[in-house]
């Protein structure tokens, strides 16, 4: 079970969180014309990377904040975590 550092609450076990997928996906702006390809990329197409991956988790049984977690998908190592509005450098 992963041990995730919630930037709001501190170290908490994985069973307090729910997974939210790739954090690098950007929703196209509202009212903007988007091609089929662009929209498919947003809704469906994911890279399924092996290695370092920036992903979303929600601390549902804690502060209910969505956070970003930099995790290795192969080793499960967690490098850094960020608040929702924090820039990831």
């Amino acid at each position: 079970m992963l041990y995730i550092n919630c930037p709001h609450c501190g170290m908490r076990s994985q069973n307090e969180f729910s997974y939210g997928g790739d954090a690098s996906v950007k929703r196209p702006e509202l009212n903007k014309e988007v091609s089929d390809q662009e929209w498919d990329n947003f809704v469906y197409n994911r890279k399924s990377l092996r290695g370092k991956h920036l992903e979303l988790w929600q601390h549902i049984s804690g502060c209910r904040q969505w956070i970003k977690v930099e995790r290795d998908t192969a080793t499960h190592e967690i490098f850094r975590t960020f608040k929702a509005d924090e820039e990831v450098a």
Partner: protein
Amino acid sequence: MTQAFRIENSGLINRDKKLSFKFNGKTYFGYEGDTLASALLANGVHLVGRSFKYHRPRGFFGAGVDEPYAVVQLYRNGETEPNIKATEQELFEGLEAKSVNCWPSVNFDIGAINNFLKIFLPAGFYYKTFMWPKSFWYRIYEPFIRKAAGLGVASIKHDKERYEHKYEYCDLLIAGSGPSGLASAYAAAKNGAKVILAEDKPRFGGSLLTSDVNIGNQSGKDWAEGIIAELKTMPNVVVKNRSQIFGYYDHNMLVMSEKVSDHLPATKKYHPNKRLWYIRAKEVLISSGSIERPIVFGNNDTPGVILSSAAKEYLKVYGVLVGRKPLVFTNNDSGYETAIEFKKHGVDPVVLDSRKNPESEIIDEAKNLGINIKNSYVVVAAQGYKKVKSADIASISEDKKQLGKIENIQCDCICVSGFWTPTIHLTSQSGNKTKFKEEIDAFVPGQSKQNEITLGAANGVFTLEETLKTSFKAGSELSKKITENDNEIAIPNVVEKKSSQHDKFWCVPLPKGKNYKRFLDFQNDVAVSDIEIALREGYRSIEHVKRYTTLGMATDQGKTSNLNGLQLVSEIENKVVPAVGHTTFRPPYTPVSIGAIVGREVGKHSKPTRKSPMHSWHEKNNAVFVDAGVWLRPRYYKRGNENLFEGSKREAKNVRTNVGVCDVTTLGKIDIKGPDAAELLNRVYTNAWLKLPVGKARYGVMLREDGIVMDDGTTTRISENHYHMTTTTAQAANVLSHLEYYLQLVWPELNVNVVSTTEQWAGAAIAGPKSRDLLQKLFPNSDVSNEGLPFMGYIEGDLFGVKARIFRISFSGELAYEVNVESDYGNFMWEKIMEVGEEFKIQPYGTEALSTLRIEMGHVAGSELDGRTIPYDNALEGLVSKKKDFIGKRSLKRTAFTAEVRQRVVGVVPLDKQTSIPEGSHLVKDDKAPLPNPKLGHISASCWSVEYDNPFSLAILKDGKNMIGQKLFAMSPLKNKVIPVEIVSSHYVDPKGERVRS
């Protein structure tokens, strides 16, 4: 019965406490501190079971967790448990156990016929033989294999025992209390670190209990006792025996099973049977020791063939002789230690050493004691069927290929030592990449992946001095990092005898003309010949060889067999062992009771139960409850002998004619506040929200980004910047997360706050033609006329002194209202409604009537919004704004979603107006068409229309729009029904929706 093999002056058992127990119906005696295994051996019982495949007689091979044979069915306090290792089960007064894998008895086992037919049971036998004819599998092969191959019987009774879970955090978790575990725990504890020390056996000390060493001028055993006693007094240390760490998971989470009560005749009141610990450790020290491995020879599975270390443990810990004429067969010095112990207790052993001319302090001691030692000698085969009677032995050439003349010598046990295999299971589970260590012919830990370090024998270090030195150091350094204390600990002086190099010899060749079975895996009956077959048939990967032959797949998980299996594969393949590699070590290290894993989450504790504030009223009024997610909701209120159908029909009819009240507390409620609240709703729902006035409610549909309908419900504008959203019961949590996702990540610029208020409000739906009259009496000071409170209107009212929210919304399609009060007043509200409603013939109605009412009105719900439908499919396209953008809108342009013949919700009526259509039935054009009969749609919800008094269903039907008036068939192979039906409008009752506005 006398304990003929128990000797005086040896062992750690309590001879003052004699215990009686039963094995296979016969009564024996043992002592407190015995295991079932040691007590049986004390009584000379060596035959305890039959093997898995050939049903060959089985005895004891080990003295602990590695035991492959002695698996029994245990009876304790009126309960039974299968697959208990007799070597791990502590004796208690009144214990009862039986052999498994044998029928009708362990002495005469019909399955042993397999032994004589073994030519038919080679590797892959099950795969090859039982595959055809196909129809035989279910009727003949499978039942036969199940009966023949079972390992004990699970109880089908409810388990009365209680199991607990515990979560714990510590600085250092130490697995194993042998010398390395004790030293590292002591050093870390002295530095003030929070330490948990776990030992799977009842006694602490590991190898120190049986080895002949001295630490700081005490015996190893006394030193261990001293350390444990001191650790137990320290507040920062938890010391646990009977506790097996069986799994090493991500981020240093380890799981341990503590046997709290298994050693007692019955579990004490308020105590659990087992306790499962989830431990998150900053550092993990693995001091799991090593397991002796066998040397492979003919008939090496005969009862009486036993690991030399086990023989020593039975002697030194339990005071039990495994035989009076022992033969020790070894390739290293460990066998001599066992021989010396025998000799010290007046028994004359013979030692066969495969080595030509070994020299060491230990061997010298054996020689000085006058022990008969034969060098360059091996056991070729054990003789005897149910017990070793003699051994065929021979000299062996230096290249280990040629056997000398075979001699037979009398013996009653063969103690075998093929050197030691580090127990690297936990280390490997942590992700550590193991490496092969040539000097010890075994795998040892390599590069650590997590914060883990392996010490002592588990790390391939077999001298006590080195073990203690590295362990004290590891304990103090790791704890220093955490506590910043640095208490120096003097490493005690160690006296141990030096060993000589072991012989890289593991398998005795077959003598000419002999075809002895030489077993690798004793529990699954995998012999050398099976591996040879697998390789001959082309299996190469060790993972495939394992699965084809079942090597290492029994309940002992190959603790004594894996390495010899690898040796064999590497020899045949002409590869080195590391090139063959080992199979993956996976948790659990040793079998764990399902009860311990489940913990207290059984029965009604398996999930939380949510009850509305009116629950006790429902109970008192004969509600029959139904699970709705984790909520309990009244399904109907039983009157007299009514069944569900009659009761729900009565309730629904009363709503259509008078007035009914339904508990709708379970609906999800979300409070939305902030200047941008309307903008959020406008983006979340498919319809327009910017112009909703204060005091008005609106029905809304929300989509996922892929265009599929996510949920529906009404949202009401309470005040300028304050909205009250309702969701379906099932989707409440998801909708809240959905809103939070967009507010926190996608549109953080929106100034809105959302919070769940599901539990803060109790809700009652009042529905029926007389609902307004009732409402007027409930709220005499409010104007609830059609003008004062029009359809989709909202007011606040005073319910006999309690503040209430009144929404004029309808799910039933009747004139209807929903009243909300703060949860604590829920019951008060409900009782008032019932009391005042009496004159209007009010009746409460449950979820079944609620469904009936919505289905015949054609209102879609969860069964239509099933995660596969878009707004059009649900006839909700009128609610999809063409002007504004919203979540999921772009997806609605996808080709499939704009297709001409898109599926759509329709009504379905059986032609005979009698036969109810099972939900899930398929709609087809031709009921006689060959299979697979093309499916046009499916029945999503069915009811008995109280308006028309005939069955009515909703369906999602291909090209539903153009199918009205068509005749089709509803087919339910599950219920074996074919029903001719007509497709009608989904709005079966009041299609214009006049009632809700009346």
